[in-house]
């Protein structure tokens, strides 16, 4: 432990001197070992970020499976409608694109993350 901060030129107050001199030093006597034996396994804190990424990953996968399969068959007709200027026809693609974006974001974040503790 640090000594109390004081001006070295200033004489130590007798009470402070007494308090410091009477600072007990307790021998370990197995205390540290008892503490180490009592330690529970360390909880690895699951950060909010990890929870969000996992949710995004699961959500994107589910959306891809549900929407993507149905849309694959309709892609040629949607492309044709878009080509004819009917951009509203592309709206069904938005969830899939969103899902793909989430998936990419989650994967990139996982790849760049270096400390999950």
């Amino acid at each position, binding site marked *: 432990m640090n000594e109390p901060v004081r001006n070295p030129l200033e004489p130590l107050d007798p009470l402070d001197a007494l308090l410091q001199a*009477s600072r007990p*030093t307790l021998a370990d006597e197995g*205390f540290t070992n008892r*503490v*180490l034996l009592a*330690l529970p396994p*360390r*909880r690895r804190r699951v950060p909010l970020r990890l929870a969000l990424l996992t949710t995004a990953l699961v959500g994107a996968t589910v959306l891809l499976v549900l929407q993507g399969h149905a849309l694959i068959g309709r892609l040629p007709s949607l492309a044709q409608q878009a080509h004819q200027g009917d951009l509203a026809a592309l709206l069904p693609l938005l969830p899939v694109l969103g899902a793909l974006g989430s998936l990419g974001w989650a994967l990139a974040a996982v790849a760049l993350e270096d400390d999950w*503790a």
Partner: protein
Amino acid sequence: MALADADLVARVRQCGDPNAFGELVRRYQSPVRAFLARLTRGDQAVADDLAQETFVRAWQNLSRFRGESRFSTWLFGIAMNQFRQRRRRERRHSPPPIEAAVTEAEPVAATPRPGVGLDLAEALERLPLAERAAVVLCCQYGLTHEEAAQALDCPLGTVKTNILRGREKLRYWLTR
């Protein structure tokens, strides 16, 4: 060369190294146990139980220690909380007699008889808890007033007042 506290803390946080934590316990077991013994008025067995619980809590919550204060300050804060929790538990399980409940939260040591000098340990035991804790942390263990305020979770002004009052009483009791 001995590693700094911050390095040991980093090792524990990164890979849960129990040896690094063991070194921290070895470094601080004496001040934490002695501080708690002062709070429990010399009951070393209870103080050691509380100290063990303090280090276990530190191990569990090390990820919350951001290094903005000294490790020892953080540890004294946990020790103080453990002591307070124990007192609350004890009060719940054994309600104090009515006359004690209406006077003061902490049992107050008897006023020293005039003309009877006390030794330091006795005098410290007679101080109210808040004054005792502040005096011990600042005057014995070298915490600054700011650090003590953080460890005791009370305003800086309160710590300064408690130290002033505590020292005045100690001086009075020790020199009679």
